[in-house]
Each structure stands twice: as structure tokens, then as C-alpha cells.
């Protein structure tokens, strides 16, 4: 049976979530693999959300914010821009492939961009296969 | 031979284990010294920052973290090609001398002492520090506790923490001494010298003046002719903090003398499938199994070894003791394992004297305690004498100073093979067909490895804690005849 990845998506309320809505309003089709969680700002997305998602069985995590300079909260997305690369560097040390975590920017008017990012990420994670780090093997710790 | 089923449960006491097998005649057939744990520091050091190693590797052992902290810090000096300012080196050594006094004191009075002071066959209930104090008197008891606490205070003061210090850096240390602190140290050093003298007197009175003990010390059951290893200064005198590693053969002749960077030409480690601990041996001779003598690569690395491997001590009082030590025991080298206890006391005296010298050094309160490294790091080896033997840390890094490879040959491990042999020999000598195995007799076997002051936390950089050890004796049918444990007594 072919593998369908589960991807957790975090969208900011003002740009990317609206971009995602617009994709729907415009009836654009995109992979159902990304399930969106709404936060007010991508700056709210703390690294624990991402590690938690993996702990709970996600195969990938997508974080979408406003384009640089467009943040509804002036520069919340810059904080995200600082946190994600460091987090990804650390996840890399823990053997988590780069493509499993993606930070990107989608404005309220970019439904098409939202779709292409979602489809692209889904394809890449599908190619990587399921995320497992065996941390839960009962006996062997 | 009947299959002995040893599910983990039957061996859950402590972390080290010796199994003795008897033959049909009831004589000792063989014995095995096992270490049942591994933590894998050599592996998970990979990817760490070199400068974090003094704090990471000391978690190998919470009993002697100071030794690992020092060996690691010295490896970093070598790795970053940086020479610490002389005050920094002196402060490191001062710190290390204080550590020696506490550590040796703990072992002699709390671990080994009771066997002699109370007698090998005295009741277990009395064979501990409290019994010792009761016998030697509160004054000495107080002195013991005081010596440990005071010198721990020095460790805390410089290292930043009581256990697991933090002050070691490539090119120096993070914290120095001010004048008040120096005065404190000087006073502690004076007290420690007095304490060391007192301890030697105790050993004199109780052991050396007791024929029975002396015979036991000199008896064949506790004797092995092996190679001896120890760190020496440029004058071939015992040094704990710095110098070259010297190896003498069973006849006391210099067999090798090498700088830290050359350790791989001289030492190799053998792996047995029945223990997580490896067995080091002299590479140039090779691994010949658990046998002693000139043709076997087995060597020992203990206080006794250090005295055997050196030509003398660097401080006057200790030198005098050193000479008395050999004249009493019939010349160099001394092969009697039990003499290690005396050697340890000589080392306490040296450490205390050296501590006093350093505390009076004009440079010791200098703020000039760091040189910032500028060269590109590549490879470094650091060696110190840990109380339990020669301790080697070896790191290879990338140009940023990220550990690519780490290798550790840890104090106690050096003696793994010797311990195995000592136990077997003592057991063979003491366990006789039909002879009832008493607790006292078992304690005499226990005394065969206690001199090594086994620290199994160190043992496999890997294993946990000061070693409580379990001995299991099986008869030829594989049934458990007897078991006993060695424990650190508070």
C-alpha cells in the first residue's frame, strides 16, 4: 500500500490562513495531507509544537507566515525566521531530514502559492517515507 | 557441566561481579571479573564541542571527576595548541593535589583501612569507618573527616562546584584565587601535611609493627610480578598532574617512557565477550591472557605502580617515606599488592606537601589565568595520574573544534586484567577443598582487589559508581556455593 504522509500545518491568521481560504474559495485542488492549525502569528509557533507533532506521529511539519515586511504584528514572522533555521539545524543532528520541516511565506492573496507549496511538500515527504525514530519501543527504551 | 542459569535477577547486586568456578576436587578452576554496563562516552562525544569535554567526560565518574576534568582540559591545551599561563597551570595542579588528599584519604580510611585496623576477620559490623574511629580514637576520626571536607572546600572554591567542576578551559581556567582564599588554602595544606604524617604513623603502628599483617602483606597470595606504569617529571619523580608516562618491567628496569601523544605505541586494549570492560596491555609485548611475568603484557597502574615506576618523590618528607618504603619491603620493585595501601599514604603526604608549596607560590593569586587559543584545533592527548591509575584522554576534531573521534583509557581499566588475576590467585590460595568458607576468608579474597581501589564508574567510562562488587562461587555442578559483596563503607 502506498504511503500517504501526515503533515501538520501552522498558518498565521492574517496572511497564510487567508491564503489557504482563498485556495478553497477559488476551488483550487490540493493534497489533503496538510492539516492546518491556525495561530495568530507564525511567531507563536514554538519549536515544541514541531517536535510534539513528530512525537505524535507527523511525517512533516509546515509553517506558513506572512511575507517579510507584511506581518500583521509588524515583525512576528522575523522571530520565526530566526527560530526555524536553528531548530532545523538541531533536528538535522537528530537525523530528521530537512524536507520534513518547511518554513515558507504565503500572503492572503496567494491561494495558488499555498497550493503549490502544499503539493510540493507532500510530494517530498511522501518520497522520504514515514517518520520513525523508534523512541517508543517499549522494552528497548 | 550443568548449565548455570544466571538470569539478571541473580546478579543484580551492584555493578561489578566476579564469578569463581570450582572443579570436582573443590579447587578453584577459574574466575572471571565482569563489568555489566556500558555508557558509550567514546561514541556520544562525537559531534560535541571540544571545550565541553571536560564537563562531559567527568560524568564518566562522579567519584573522581576532577581527574577526568584535568585530563580532558590538558587534552584541550594540546588540541588547540595553546600554552596556559604559568599561574593557570599551578592553580590546576593545586586543585588536583587537594583532590588527591581527599580521594586517597577516603579510600584508605573508609575502604581499605578497616581490614587492617579492625583485622581481616573481624565482624562485618565493626569492619567500617565507625569501627575504625572507635579504635583509633575520635581525634584521628575527626582529622579524617576534616581532611576530606577541607580539601573538598578547595575543590569547590576553584572548580566552582563540589562535584563536577566547571573551571577547565583550553589555555587556562575560568576562575582564580584571591588572597583570602590563598590563606585558607595554605592553612588547609599545613593541616593536610600533619594529617598525612599522622596517617603514616597509624599504618606503622597497626600494620608494620604487626608481624601477622606484615606476613600477610608479603604473602604470595597477594603477589604478582607485573609491569608498572606511572607519570613522572623530568627527574623521573612521581608526578600526578604532568610529565611523561614511564613503564618499568618486573625487575624494575625502565621498559618505556612516552609522552602523551605516543600512548598508542605503548598501550592496547583487549576485548572479552563476557564483560563490557576492556583489558589494556602493553602493546610491544602483546596480550598473552590473564598471566603475570615479563612475557605478559599485563601491567598495573596504582599508587604502588607509580612508586615502582619512579625514582623518587619531589617533596622532602615524601621522599624520606619513599626510601623507608623500599628498605622495609626489600627493595624495588615491590610486587606485593597489599603494599599499595602504604604507597597510597606516601602519595597523600606528597600531595599535601605539594599543595603547601603551591599555596605559597607568589604567582598563585595572579589574575593571569587564561590564554585565548588562536591556532586551529586538530588532535590532542591529555594524560594525568588519577588516584586509580594513568588516565588518558585523546580527541580528534575538525577545524572548528568539533569532536570527530574520542578515545579514553581510564585509570581503573588499566588494572582490569590484574584484578582478574589477583582474585583468582587469592581464591586459589585461600579456598581449599573441604575448608569452610567463612566471611572472614571471603574478605581475605576481597582484599585481593580492594587495593586497586576499583572505580567501576571509571572502569568502562561506562560503568556506574564506586564499585560494589559481587563474587559468586560455583561448584563443579554450577551451583552457587557462596556470594559476597564489596562495598564502599560511609
Amino acid at each position: 500500500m502506498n504511503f500517504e504522509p501526515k503533515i501538520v500545518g501552522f498558518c498565521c491568521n492574517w496572511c497564510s490562513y487567508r491564503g489557504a481560504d482563498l485556495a478553497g474559495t477559488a476551488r483550487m485542488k490540493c493534497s489533503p495531507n496538510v492539516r492546518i492549525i491556525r495561530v495568530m502569528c507564525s511567531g507563536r509557533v514554538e519549536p515544541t509544537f514541531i517536535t510534539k507533532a513528530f512525537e505524535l506521529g507527523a511525517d512533516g511539519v509546515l509553517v506558513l507566515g506572512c511575507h517579510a515586511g507584511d506581518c500583521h504584528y509588524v515583525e512576528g514572522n522575523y522571530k520565526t525566521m530566526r527560530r526555524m533555521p536553528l531548530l532545523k539545524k538541531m533536528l538535522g543532528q537528530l537525523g530528521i531530514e530537512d524536507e520534513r520541516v518547511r518554513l515558507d511565506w504565503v500572503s492572503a492573496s496567494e491561494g495558488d502559492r499555498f497550493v503549490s507549496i502544499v503539493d510540493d511538500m507532500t510530494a517530498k515527504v511522501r518520497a522520504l517515507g514515514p517518520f520513525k525514530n523508534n523512541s517508543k519501543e517499549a522494552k528497548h527504551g | 557441566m550443568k548449565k548455570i542459569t544466571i538470569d539478571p535477577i541473580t546478579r543484580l547486586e551492584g555493578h561489578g561481579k566476579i564469578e569463581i568456578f570450582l572443579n570436582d576436587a573443590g579447587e578453584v578452576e577459574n574466575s572471571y571479573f565482569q563489568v555489566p554496563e556500558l555508557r558509550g562516552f567514546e561514541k556520544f562525544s562525537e559531534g560535541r564541542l571540544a571545550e565541553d569535554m571536560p564537563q562531559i567526560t567527568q560524568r564518566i565518574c562522579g567519584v573522581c571527576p576532577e581527574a577526568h576534568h584535568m585530563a580532558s582540559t590538558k587534552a584541550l591545551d594540546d588540541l588547540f595548541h595553546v600554552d596556559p599561563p604559568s599561574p593557570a597551570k599551578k592553580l590546576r595542579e593545586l586543585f588536583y593535589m587537594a583532590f588527591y588528599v581527599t580521594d586517597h584519604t577516603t579510600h584508605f580510611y573508609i575502604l581499605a583501612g578497616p581490614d587492617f585496623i579492625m583485622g581481616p576477620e573481624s565482624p562485618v559490623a565493626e569492619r567500617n569507618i565507625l569501627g575504625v574511629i572507635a579504635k583509633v580514637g575520635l581525634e584521628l576520626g575527626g582529622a579524617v573527616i576534616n581532611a576530606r571536607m577541607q580539601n573538598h572546600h578547595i575543590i569547590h572554591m576553584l572548580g566552582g562546584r563540589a562535584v563536577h567542576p566547571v573551571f577547565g578551559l583550553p589555555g587556562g581556567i575560568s576562575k582564580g584565587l584571591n588572597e583570602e582564599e590563598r590563606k585558607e588554602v595554605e592553612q588547609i595544606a599545613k593541616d593536610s601535611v600533619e594529617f598525612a604524617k599522622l596517617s603514616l604513623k597509624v599504618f606503622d603502628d597497626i600494620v608494620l609493627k604487626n608481624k601477622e599483617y606484615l606476613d600477610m602483606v608479603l604473602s604470595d597470595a597477594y603477589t604478582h610480578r607485573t609491569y608498572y606504569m606511572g607519570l613522572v617529571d623530568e627527574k623521573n619523580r612521581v608526578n600526578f598532574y604532568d610529565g611523561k608516562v614511564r613503564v618499568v618491567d618486573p625487575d624494575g628496569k625502565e621498559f618505556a617512557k612516552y609522552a602523551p601523544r605516543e600512548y598508542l605505541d605503548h598501550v592496547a586494549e583487549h576485548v572479552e565477550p563476557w564483560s563490557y570492560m576492556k583489558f589494556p596491555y602493553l602493546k610491544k609485548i602483546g596480550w598473552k591472557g590473564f598471566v603475570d611475568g615479563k612475557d605478559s603484557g599485563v601491567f598495573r597502574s596504582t599508587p604502588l605502580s607509580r612508586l615502582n615506576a619512579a625514582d623518587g618523590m619531589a617533596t622532602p618528607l615524601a621522599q624520606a617515606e619513599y626510601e623507608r618504603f623500599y628498605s622495609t619491603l626489600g627493595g624495588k620493585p615491590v610486587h606485593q599488592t597489599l603494599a599499595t595501601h602504604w604507597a597510597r599514604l606516601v602519595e597523600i603526604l606528597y600531595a599535601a606537601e605539594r599543595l603547601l608549596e603551591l599555596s605559597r607560590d607568589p604567582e598563585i593569586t595572579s589574575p593571569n589565568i587564561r590564554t585565548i587559543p588562536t591556532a586551529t584545533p586538530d588532535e590532542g592527548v591529555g594524560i594525568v595520574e588519577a588516584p586509580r591509575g594513568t588516565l588518558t584522554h585523546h580527541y580528534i576534531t575538525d577545524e572548528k573544534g568539533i569532536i570527530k573521534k574520542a578515545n579514553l583509557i581510564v585509570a581503573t581499566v588499566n588494572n582490569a586484567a590484574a584484578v582478574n588475576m589477583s582474585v583468582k590467585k587469592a581464591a586459589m590460595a585461600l579456598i581449599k577443598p573441604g575448608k569452610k568458607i567463612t566471611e572472614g576468608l571471603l574478605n581475605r579474597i576481597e582484599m585481593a582487589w580492594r587495593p586497586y581501589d576499583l572505580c567501576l564508574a571509571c572502569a568502562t567510562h561506562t560503568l556506574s559508581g564506586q564499585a560494589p562488587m559481587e563474587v559468586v562461587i560455583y561448584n563443579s555442578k554450577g551451583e552457587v556455593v557462596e556470594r559476597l559483596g564489596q562495598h564502599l563503607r560511609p
Partner: protein
Amino acid sequence: MAEKKAAKKNDAEPKIGVYVCDCGSNIAGTIDVPQVVDFAKGLNRVAVAREYKFMCSDPGQNMIKDDIKNLKLNRVVVASCSPLLHEPTFRHAVQEAGLNPYLFEMANIREHCSWTTEDHGEATAKAKALVSAAVKRVYHHQPLEAREVPVNANTLIVGGGIAGIQAALEIADAEHKVYLVEKDPSIGGHMIQFDKTFPTLDCSACILTPKMTSAGSHPYIELMTYSEVEEISGFIGNFKAKIRKKARFVDESKCNGCGVCIEKCPWKAPSEFDLGLSQRKAIYTPFAQAVPNIPVIDKESCAYFLKGKCRACEKFCEREAIDFEQQDKIVEVEVGNIIITTGYDPFDPTPITKYGYGRLPNVYTGLEFERICNAVGPTGGKIVLKDGSEPKSIAIIHCVGSRDENYHRYCSRVCCMYALKYSHLIKEKIKADVYQMYIDMRCFGKGYEEFYERLSKEGVTFIRGKPAEVTDRAISEEEKGKLIVVGEDTLLGTIVRVPVDMVILCIALEARADAKNVAQLFSISQGADGFFIERHPKLDPVATMTEGVFIAGCCQGPKDIPDTVAQASAAATRVLALISKGRVELEAAVAVIDEEKCSGCRICNLLCPYNAIDFIEEDEVSRINEALCKGCGTCVAACPSAAITHKHFTTEEIMAEIEGVLV
């Protein structure tokens, strides 16, 4: 462990109702709704789960209200469209049933699911995940009380064009103070530059100047021309604005606008108002009917500022209003609402070299032509060529910079109409041939189509097709000395070469060059085209994402005067509504610091864009000013002690949601 704690916090044990909307066939057409309902029934703490065709309808809302009453629900989940659409609707509904509106959560199974997913199975599976996420999340929801703050009755309007003037007057007439800020020396904006206005052809100045004057003299309007907003702080109902009044070097309190200074000034510079087609003095008012009628000295062209001597104006000013020492002034005002009416920039056609603007004489932009036609313009209203002669033929090229992949994809909406207006003005003044070169004629407004018909009867030639180039390279006698407009007539399917004397480019309206700064200053957003984004394209056209900040006119997108005025009035009405209510509810989902946990590490201090976080030295903890907090949660994500809680977006709630989407 943290999660266990959260569960305890809920006083009453959660009792959740789940309502899945068919949205006609919008959802039910793709998602197996009954299946989702059954799934929901099986979820922890779900007391009831129902399907309904339109949850947002009254019956739908009543269904929820009844269940809350009868089944004692204390948490509600609606799975339907985007929360951005109907969250307020349902929050209101649960509130009416006596439940705190924050004990509600929405699952977006339409925009994010049924509309974007083809496969019905996949869509249904995803819908289940989104529902379980909402259910797990709502379990942790806590009741929140929205805080109310008074609304300052003063209003700040930025931009003194027709939109700003209109909005200002409406609010001022209701006797509420307005600060009208304009960066130029006079209000009036682009409209005052126009000659006539389509389709009615009444004179732009004639209809605008009365409004300008009343704005200038209105007791409730404080005009701040030659001024710019530099800093905005605060929040809806309670903004503080720092405004820079640029030095005019003329004392407004003394000047009576007699104009002697201008008359005596020996120095000239190109007139901004006439787009450089004429000259103005170094001390000047942009145009005759300027409001306020107080001149400014342009440092760049004033001899005194350049060479240190002259001061002619000073000598002749009887009221001693000239003040060379004058400095910029920073004025601070407190307002409750802000309307942004910063207008547009005319597109600069120079880059479209094929049309020869700036290269070939007698190629003009529409705005330039407005000035040329204007009686008080550079040519005194005469339509003449550079050499002073009268053009025999004029080509008007549409969609320059609009509907063009390389520049702006959008339609500027006004060009067709003003192009028609030009033909009329030309025909009226001189009897030249006029060619309209268009892509499509768009005459959608009231009276526009009629205007188009009327014009087509005035002998104007319409050529459908976007011209390829305007050149002066003649290939025949009759083309000699002319501008030749080359293009295809797509109706006839033939290449045409039209020799004319003058070419008018109908340039696009584009977002102001500084729109980005303005957007950041007022924390509103821009679309891809650079114009400001309204809160909802249909249902909330003048509000923005930022409470208390409204937009009107061309800063929101190209539009004609009637639409601009309508928007301005709309914005004014929104503001008046807030003023008359007198108070406003603030975001309840803000961040709070638990001072029992804050170690005073000060990581968060600089992260807040609203400076809402203070470090309290004596207590060695950081504290958040809830009124300033806008609830973005950036500080929450940064706190290494987890001492900051983001109300309604707590870590427990989001973690639960993560768990939910991963079922």
C-alpha cells in the same frame, strides 16, 4: 504533566456539542457528513453531534442554542466554513445561549477541505481529523472576558484628497474633531488637478473647491498640511500619533495669503502641480485656490537657502510672516480612529520606451493633458503642441501600464472613461481628429455607457488593439513630421499606421511609492499589487486587519470619484458608529506573564512590536500591558520558562489540536 494540570483547570467537566454543516452541497457534496457526525459522536466528552444543511442559518443557530440549554453543553464545535467568515456568528449564538463565546471552536471543513479535495474518501478523512482537532482543542478552552475601553472621539485622517476631505467633513459635521493630515502644502489631491469630470463633465475645481474651503474653515477640522505622520502607537479607541509639520518658513498665524511674497520672489522652479509643464516661484502656493492659502518656501529653489542672500519675500511681507528660522515641528495628537486616504501615484510610462514618452515631443500622459486642458493650466487651457501650433490629430492610447503582464495586471478602471472625456474636450476646443486605441471599452458605471454612445457620435475613431509603438520614422509623405501610432486593428485584422500630431497615454493608477511604509506604520497589509487590503473584499471593504484603522479611495485600489466618495463616507460612518458607542471591546486573547514563574531573564522584552512588555526592576519580573498586547504570541513562544500564557492559544490547546489533526 502540563496537560493534566490544564484538564483540572476546567471547572465543570467539558460537555461538548459538535455540529457539522452540509453548506448545501458545498460540503456535503464532497464529504460524507453523516460519517463525520458518527465519528464525532465517538470522541471523548462529546455529548451530541448533529448534521444540518446550513448551520449559519437561524434554525442552525437555534439548534445549538437549544442543545446548550437542554443538554447543558458547555463547549461547542461547529464544522463548516472558515472561522474568518462565521466564527463571530457562532460565538454570538453560543453567547445568546448563556455560554462564554470563547468556549466555542470551529473546524474549517469547507475552504480547507471540501473545496480543495477531489477524492471524497480523502476529504471525509481530513474532515474527521479537523473535527477531532477542534474537539480536543475546545476541551481546554477557558472562558474569556473581552475588555472594554473608551473610544477617543477624535479622528486622524491621512491624505487630503477628495476621499480625506469627504470623510473629514462627514465626521466634523457630526461635531467630532478631525485631524486632516496632508503631505503637500494644500489639500485637494489629484482631483483638483483634473479639468472636467466624467461622465457629467462638470468642472472638477468647481465641485471640489467648496468642499476644500469648508474643510479649511471647519471648526471641527484641524488641517495639518505640509505634514506627515511619523509614528503611531496605541490601539483602537486610543491611538497616539506623532505628526511632523514640515517647516513652511511662513508663520501661518500671521500670513493672510495676500500673495505679495510670491509676486516679489525672483526665483523659479518647475511646478509640481502642473507636472513640470509650468514654473512656480521659490515661495509658492501650489495653485490659486490652495487651502490653506498660505505659501511655503521651497529650500531647494530659494536663493536665500541656496546662496544665503535675497530675502525679498521677507522685505515685502507687511505682516512679517516670513520666518527663515522656522523648524519642523513634531505634534502629538490622541485619536480613537484612523482613516487612511493616501490615494495613488500616476504610472510613469517612461519605461515603455516604444511609446516614446519623454523621448518624442507631444507624447503626454493623461494627467498632463488634464492640466493642458485646464483654463488655469500651463497653456491657459489651449490644446497646443510644444511648438505652440494646434494639433490636427490626436491619438489616445488606453491601458498604458494597466492590463499589462509587464507592469500591472489589473485594470485601472477610470482610463476608458477619461479617455472618452478627452475626446470630448478636444472636439469641444479644437476640431482635431481623435483616435481611441483601446483593448476593451469598459463603461460600467452609472451614465457611462450613455457617455460612450454620445462620444461615438462625435466622430471619434475607435481602433481596437493595443498599439505596438509610437514612432517618428515616417515611411510616406503624409507621415512626415508626424507621430505614427503603429498597431493592429484586431477587428479588421489589419496593421494600421496612424499619423498624428499628439499622443495621450492613458496611464495606470498605481499604489503610492511609499505605500509599504504607510502599511507598516499603521500595521495594515498590502496586496500583491501594492494597494492596501480591506478586511473583506465584499462584506467589509473599508475596514482593515487593524481595529480602528480604515481605508478609503484609491489607496485601496483604482476607482473613480463617485466610488471614492462613497467609500470615504462609509469609512466616516464606521468611525462615527464607534464614536457614538463610545467604547470598544479589546482582543481578549492576549498574553499574560505568570510572575510566580518569570525569572526576569528578559528574553521577551524586545520581542514585542508594541512595547507592551515592561521589566519591573523592583520585582525583577517582566510584565505585559494587556491594553497594548495584540495577542500575536511571539513572546509566548520565546519564554524559556513557559511563564507566558497566550489566552485562547495556550500551549495545551495547540498541543491538543496537533494531537487531533494526527488521528
